[in-house]
């Protein structure tokens, strides 16, 4: 009975989404205040019923209702309670419901935190999101209903959750990734609403910015969590594999990064409007494409659970409709988006444009590498190929290096016009210091020269020293350093924090790739192996019984230059219900290096095969991501975004700019 209620709630959510996607939009178009005012209550309704769906599915998991097919496939009576709850997103149907619920959550957030925006604009934004929601809920009802039953012969027990998913990473990675992914539909809805209303002005950009930053911050955390999880769960010692399913979030992240910078230019200077709108459409489309790639089964990867061609066709159709529709609207409204080039050839605008281009090119290159095997298969009549990490690294690494150079130039130069002499004066010492230190530091620490390490260190320092120089410049005229720091705009501080985080990721990623060492060996109990400065002593294994698994637990003594560091206990588990084996890594995490042991298999002699890794600075990748996301969140908190309500768009456009001094080059549109 209860699952049927869920089914009913799902259908109701669909109906409410359709209402939300029509009435408020029509109301905003015709000026019908009543219909406009329906947007917020309808949004609340969608949220309530989708939450009900999610709760009911969770209830079915917790009560072991194996007559529900999705529960039977992804749970087991022995599964620990936290995984029963999170198994809701452990398969296709449930994770799509979760995804749609996230959309409803964002919609609710927009309806609650939009007091500063005119009602007709909010109605349009929520209406667009309602249409997206209608597409998602229809998709669930038609092709992937999480409430489908196995009746009358329901299984006595479930098939269990994939053993690789029974982990803390699985509890936190999908929610944050989905939340970030879906967040870009907010920015998309803002862009489409602006196109519909025909008023693409700086007010629109100012309203979009906090949402874009928030979505971007959460996506950053989601990707970082995925990388961290893959690192300690999949056991090959890597943190990024350019897996076909890892790539779409990365594409989305790169486009999102371009978008938040382009939005800044549109808000402050009123230019790049069409480009910003296009980026918003592309970022949203890339999130749909990611869904398509994951769900269609066209690509094989560790993520490709439960794939079905009809789903692929549906998503592809939806994708075509969304992209086609938005681009058509974009083309129709193009005359409204004219903006003059109110800036010189050396200015912050130009550097940001350069960064935008690099980011878009990088995402296009990743897309090419991801889709190439599919296209090749279609064109060659079924021949299979795969594109490996070397392709992605060859393209991504040089592009990011160029990006870093422009990053500092863009941050330190001024809007509208900057003289080359000024840039030289400000950055000459920064450049010299970063190159010199970049050459010296890796050499001094490792006593070996490595070109890659020097370049990475120099680029990282270029960002960090560039930030220091920029802040010094900003507070030079203030009475004290503290007073100077207080006078800085919150959004500016957020930007510098995010840039600092990027420098940390850059150095971490590059240096860990260069300096990591590994060794695969066969060891009998009592034997040991040396790697780097460390000695790993294998003391044998013991048997261990978990709640739903049996395990062999190994003990290692780790010594550094003869001194005892700590004991490590990697495990080899077999999950009882599915009989699937799983390797639990042992990791000694540290700021400067990780020690990492993964067990292979036992030989007849009692010896174990195993891999041992030393990975310097690998934590910096995730630490930097956190700092970067934190920067974006700080920027969202800037008071500037929460101003008094304006009744209409016309008023919003007439309102003076946040920084009147630089708005001279703005042209009036429409």
């Amino acid at each position: 009975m209860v699952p049927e209620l869920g089914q009913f709630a799902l259908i109701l959510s669909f109906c409410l989404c359709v209402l939300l996607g029509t009435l408020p939009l029509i109301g905003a178009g015709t000026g019908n205040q009543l219909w406009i005012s329906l947007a917020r209550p309808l949004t609340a309704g969608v949220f309530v019923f989708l939450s009900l769906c999610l709760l009911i599915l969770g209830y079915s998991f917790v009560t072991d209702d194996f007559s529900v097919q999705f529960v039977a496939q992804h749970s087991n009576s022995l599964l620990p309670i936290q995984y029963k709850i999170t198994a809701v997103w452990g398969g296709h149907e449930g994770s799509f419901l979760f995804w749609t619920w996230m959309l409803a959550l964002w919609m609710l957030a927009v309806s609650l935190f939009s007091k500063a925006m005119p009602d007709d604009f909010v109605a349009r934004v929520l209406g667009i999101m309602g249409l997206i929601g209608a597409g998602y809920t229809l998709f669930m009802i038609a092709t992937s209903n999480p409430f489908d039953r196995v009746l009358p012969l329901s299984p006595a027990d479930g098939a269990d959750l994939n053993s690789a998913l029974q982990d803390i990473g699985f509890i936190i990675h999908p929610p944050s990734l989905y939340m970030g992914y879906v967040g870009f539909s907010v920015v998309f809805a803002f862009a489409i609403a602006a196109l519909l209303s025909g008023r693409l002005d700086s007010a629109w950009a100012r309203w979009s910015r906090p949402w874009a930053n928030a979505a971007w911050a959460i996506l950053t955390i989601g990707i970082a969590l995925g990388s961290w999880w893959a690192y300690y769960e999949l056991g090959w010692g890597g943190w990024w594999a350019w897996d076909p399913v890892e790539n779409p979030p990365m594409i989305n992240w790169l486009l999102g990064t371009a978008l938040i910078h382009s939005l800044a230019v549109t808000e402050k200077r009123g230019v790049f409007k069409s480009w910003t709108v296009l980026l918003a459409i592309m970022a949203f489309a890339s999130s749909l494409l990611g869904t398509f790639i994951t769900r269609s089964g066209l690509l094989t990867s560790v993520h490709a659970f439960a794939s079905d061609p009809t789903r692929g066709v549906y998503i592809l159709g939806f994708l075509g409709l969304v992209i086609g529709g938005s681009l058509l609207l974009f083309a129709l409204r193009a005359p409204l988006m004219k903006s003059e080039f109110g800036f010189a050839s050396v200015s912050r605008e130009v550097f940001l444009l350069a960064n935008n281009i690099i980011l878009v090119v990088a995402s296009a290159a990743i897309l090419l590498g991801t889709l190439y095997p599919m296209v090749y298969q279609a064109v060659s009549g079924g021949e299979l190929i795969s594109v490996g990490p070397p392709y992605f690294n060859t393209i991504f690494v040089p592009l990011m290096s160029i990006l870093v150079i422009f990053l500092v130039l863009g941050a330190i130069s001024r809007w509208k016009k900057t003289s080359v002499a000024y840039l030289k004066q400000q950055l000459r010492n920064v450049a010299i210091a970063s190159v010199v230190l970049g050459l010296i530091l890796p050499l001094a620490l490792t006593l070996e020269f490595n070109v890659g390490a020097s370049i990475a260190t120099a680029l990282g320092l270029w960002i960090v020293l560039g930030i220091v120089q920029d802040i010094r410049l900003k507070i030079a005229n203030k009475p004290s350093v503290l007073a100077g720091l207080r006078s800085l705009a919150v959004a500016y501080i957020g930007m510098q924090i995010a840039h600092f985080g990027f420098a940390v990721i850059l150095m971490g990623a590059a240096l860990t790739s260069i300096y990591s060492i590994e060794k695969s060996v066969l060891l009998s109990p009592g034997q040991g192996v040396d790697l780097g400065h460390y000695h790993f002593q294998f003391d044998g294994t013991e048997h261990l019984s978990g709640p739903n698994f049996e395990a062999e637990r190994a003990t290692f003594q780790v010594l550094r230059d003869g001194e005892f560091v700590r004991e490590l206990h990697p495990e080899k588990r077999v999950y009882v219900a599915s009989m699937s084996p799983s390797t639990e890594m042992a990791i000694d995490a540290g700021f400067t290096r990780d020690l990492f042991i993964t067990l292979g298999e036992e030989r007849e002699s009692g010896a174990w095969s195993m891999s041992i890794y030393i990975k310097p600075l690998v934590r910096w990748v995730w630490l930097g991501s956190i700092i970067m996301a934190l920067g974006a969140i700080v920027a969202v908190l800037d008071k500037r975004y929460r101003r008094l309500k304006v009744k209409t768009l016309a008023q919003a456009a007439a309102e003076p700019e946040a920084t009147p001094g630089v708005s001279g080059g703005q042209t009036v549109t429409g």
Partner: protein
Amino acid sequence: MKPHRRKKLTIIAFIATGLSVAIGLSLYALSNSIDLFFTPTQVAAGEVMNGQRVRVGGMVKEGSVMRSEESLHVEFVATDYAHDVLIRYDGILPDLFREGQGVVVEGTVANGVFEASRVLAKHDENYMSVEVKAALDAAERSMSVPETEGGANGS
């Protein structure tokens, strides 16, 4: 030329340069890092050049896995039920590597023996990778006998 036109032109030139560099880089990188996929039948027919990096997919033949007791060396046979390929590997096999299950190996062929640099087994046991399935289907098609034990095994 008017100043704003010149700016526009500068920006367009800038974009064009960036794009062509990117396309050049992409194509260069693609040409160097594509791994072609072969079936055991194709390998047995000698279609793979010596030293060429390829992927081979098939099922791990029952009873074919030989593990060395002194080192990490492992040998096994990957089959599409029409032809077999001997695979040699020095390293740790993935958790889901099992006899009678699908496997994809990456590496080079020398004198009919495959030296694997990477062995991939899939995460879900009910799910077979596209590559393995393609290999089995191809073998099935080429065999004129309608008896298709391999196909039933692979479902």
